[in-house]
């Protein structure tokens, strides 16, 4: 995740709806945002859960 952020890629974000057309021409480097953080709902986490 740190490596991704170093190159300007924030990692998975549930939504960029409010930002996609707000930061034209300027760097926007938000933190990763999970489904759980956005919705407060637990989601299945796949193989790690086992």
């Amino acid at each position, binding site marked *: 995740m740190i490596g991704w952020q170093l190159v300007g*890629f*924030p990692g998975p974000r549930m939504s960029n709806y409010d930002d996609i*057309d707000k930061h034209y021409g300027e760097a926007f480097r938000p933190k990763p945002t999970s489904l759980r953080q956005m919705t407060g709902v637990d*989601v299945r986490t*796949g193989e790690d859960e086992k």
Partner: protein
Amino acid sequence: MKALPAVDVVIVGGGWTGLLMAKELGSRTALSVVVLERGGPRSTGDYSVEMDELNTLRFRMMQDLSEETVTMRHSSRQRAVPLRQHGAFLPGSGVGGAGEHWGGWFPRFLPDTFALRSRTIEKYGPAKLPADHSIEDWGITYDDLEPHYTRAEYLVGASGKAGNLRGTRIEGGNIFEGWRSTEYPTPPTKIPYIASLFRDATQSLGYHPYPLPSATTSTSFTNPDGVSRPGCTYCGFCDRYGCMIGAKAQPTNTLLPVIQKHKNVSIRTAAWVRRIVHSSADGKRRVSGVMYVDALGKETFQPAALTILASWTLNNNRLLLLSGIGEPYDPATGKGNLGRNLTHQVSMSLVTLFFEKPLNRFMGSAAAGIRVSDFDGDLVEKTQLPFLQGGSFNVSNLTTGPIANFGVLPPSVKARWGSDWKKAALYHYDRTSGIRFAGEHLAYKGNCMDLDPTYKDRFGDPLLRMTIDWRDNERKMVEFMTAKAVEIGRAMGATQVVPFPGLHAYDTTRYQSSHVQGGTIVGSSPDRSVVNGYLQHWEFSNLFILGASSFPQNASPNPTATILALTYRTADAIVDRYLKTPGPLG
């Protein structure tokens, strides 16, 4: 071999076309319908934990090439070799097929597409056609398809802006499109910064940019089947991923919710169809069902009154060839139709653009962008140009993951390793983009499909062999369009513009698109086609063949809207006509 009880309809393939047909037949009739899908089940919930670029780089949603692949050669003088890695195209596997990992571009074809051969001869004379072409008219028209295009757009909740509403041209939409009876069901998506640069630049050059038609909804939408999907959140994990919220229309989020309500439709996964079973008696040719291998490896016969072949283009062709249905095409003699007119799409980034300002490429969806169609089809007069047809320019944030896209550097950076390289790579990662081109690939006599004489799949059946190469028409078109893209890139403010090096031999290692067409082509005569205008096999009236294998040649726009429109038209023909009087519809 185990024989199952007969059903009314068996559908081979659980992607867009197979499931749309299952939905239509399940909703409008009481027929028993079975869909056979060789991959596994899928649902939207699966995708919320798969936003990981490694999943796409490992092709986890694609066909497993260790079980079945294709062989490829450039001409009949060569020996074909098997493709052991995904490259030029990405066939899907599992319920939903490639419709789960697609980008969602949803343009219609231009009206002239459907009469390419006759219109070109009428306008330019036969000498303008390439020497070894095998271009055909479709035998159906844009007007035939228009109502079904509309149904397809409402099915997926397409976003966009009309440019030709019942003949009235509307600025801001695609003013070159054929007439449409309605506006798009949802407004255009938001667009990322790079697409805004492209829009402004092309406008300043006198072109007509418009929002890319998309099967990703821009707002919440409930389709005529009562299926609701949310608007796009521009998370950036789009093409090559399943959409985690279902904003991008996929068979699993658009068709499955309806199919699951109908007890007369069932979907069997891990069902690998190997043969279409048929017979000839009393002068009548009939398909009696399909033979497949189930999850336990048991050969199973599923009898059915009606068989619908709805797998991907290459697999449709291979199943028919393996089953001995139709006369295989022989490029040396021109005899036979099955396997002829193999086409792909002339698709690439025509320029790589380097900017001073960051682009925030991680935000967007594959189809949230801007398109320019001023050079599509025959919109530019070709009398003085050395090629036929054309294509469109497109800009969106497409496949921008940091693993696959890191380290693309402009020619001004001389370092190839070390700290200077790292510094430059970090600087340019989010300052690099391109202009994608979607261009037309004409049909040629030498580009075709047959069964490979050497290589086999995991069951010992021959692989499909593709014989395909570009011709001068495509090469000269790309040369012309690259010069236009360079001009546009400079107008966008790019500090460095690197043009595409040119189209040479067909390259299986460079991803182009998964838009492969032909082999079971549609037409108005059995002498020159495999299926009639309702996608019904000319010789076997209880066999219908769906999908892009029916396209006589590629048309530059992405094909899914047309594929779904054709499927709707076929479903109507089956329900309204065939079931009442089974037999040839053409």
